[in-house]
């Protein structure tokens, strides 16, 4: 009972400490990762995100994989996604998912994840911004060719990639996927990808730019691996003691971000300026 009172209070209370410009014509989105537990924490995080929606319009949410841990029955879709994020969904916000290693690839057909039956896809929420969702579990030749072609054809848009396995990470449990990095990073550099979001590690980390690219890890939206961020000179900010989500706003040549815990504390924020069109 206490749980539901807390959720209701969170959803209704005005959001605090918004550090984003919140301009009307910019692109607003949220980032969550490894969220599919159906745990109390996932419900509280969903409620916190909904509370922030009262002061910050969220156009869409990207999900960084492990969208459903364990079983994937219709009841699991409800308990691990539809219910925790019910208030956000009710406002008509679309979620765009990528596949994690705990996700059955047939999730790509699920209407709530907006993958349209594809393991990898791109979408353009607004002029000047394009997001690329990749399947980092299975980077076959066909997908590599698609990434190359899709990035090459995306012109002067902001290019933001998201997938499950991080190319850089200070996590002691998993660490970076260096095999994947060898394949993806040269294409990202060649075609001007500015920002990359990944999950898998159950914490938040923002890396110092690597080869000009800003890498974020947000795999701590429903479960945490406390104390797992190893000391590294690559880390710009690491946080692993509360569940988090990221709010982002793309306005012209700036991408503003704010990382917020389920308790409402802002643990990181900043602005990324685009290198060149």
């Amino acid at each position, binding site marked *: 009972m206490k749980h539901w009172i807390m959720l209701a209070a969170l959803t209704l209370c005005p959001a605090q400490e918004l550090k984003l410009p919140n301009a009307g014509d910019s692109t607003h989105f949220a980032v969550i990762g490894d969220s599919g537990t159906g745990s109390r924490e996932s419900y509280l995080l969903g409620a916190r995100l909904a509370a922030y929606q009262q002061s910050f319009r969220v156009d869409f949410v990207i999900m960084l994989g492990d969208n459903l841990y364990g079983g994937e029955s219709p009841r699991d*879709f409800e308990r691990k996604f539809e219910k925790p994020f019910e208030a956000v969904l009710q406002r008509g916000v679309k979620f765009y998912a990528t596949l994690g290693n*705990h996700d*059955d690839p047939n999730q790509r057909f699920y209407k709530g994840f907006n993958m349209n*039956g594809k393991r990898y896809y791109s979408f353009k929420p607004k002029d000047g911004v394009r997001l690329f969702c990749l399947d980092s579990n299975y980077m076959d030749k066909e997908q590599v060719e698609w990434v190359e072609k899709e990035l090459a054809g995306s012109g002067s848009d902001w290019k933001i990639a998201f997938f499950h396995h991080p190319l850089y990470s200070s996590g002691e449990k*998993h660490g970076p*996927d*260096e095999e*994947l990095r*060898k*394949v993806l990073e040269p294409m990202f550099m060649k075609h001007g990808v500015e920002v990359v979001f990944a999950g898998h590690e159950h914490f938040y980390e923002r890396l110092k730019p690597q080869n000009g690219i800003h890498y974020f890890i947000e795999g701590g939206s429903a479960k945490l691996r406390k104390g797992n961020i190893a000391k590294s000179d690559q880390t710009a900010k690491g946080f692993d003691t509360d569940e988090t989500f990221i709010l982002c706003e793309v306005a012209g040549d700036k991408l503003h971000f704010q990382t917020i815990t389920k308790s409402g504390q802002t643990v990181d924020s900043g602005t990324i300026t685009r290198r060149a069109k």
Partner: protein
Amino acid sequence: MGIVAIAVLLGWLGALPPQSAVEVFNARLAAYTKARKDAVSNLPSLKAKATPEQIRDREQAFAKAIRGSRTGAQPGDVLTPEIRPLILSILKSEIKGPHNRDTRASIKEGNPRHEKAPGEVEPAIAVNAIYPKNAPLSTVPPVLLERLPQLPKELEYRFVGRTLILRDRESNLIVDYLKEAVPTP
């Protein structure tokens, strides 16, 4: 069929060149996809924006139809004795040794032997067995996907422990497997 018969015979004689082994493998893959297509041809297609119930029903119908079409399937029917040495040699060259540490780390990611969340299981490996929904899926690194024989879009390679499996993407069926495919470091 003639090519397959000759290739199998040469394989028994231990004289099958890699190219012919791939041809045999491709013929088996083509036979699988043809049988699969025939088996599921009467099933309704799934919308790109389906409900969880529709996804579940489709998977179950696919699995039932495909299983029904290959009731006598045995290990080695697709991953034939001819192709196994080639696959094992590729895996050995890309996984074994101190210079392949990253690849070894990568195939442990999501591998049910190494990474199970609470409530998740390691699949029981058998031809026509369902790969359970509550089992994670291993990463297959790009370097392996580049070198291993290409698969039709209906199938994928995955690892369960040291076993390489061929998995049907839509039905979640284990189509065939190769035990002890991953070399020890």
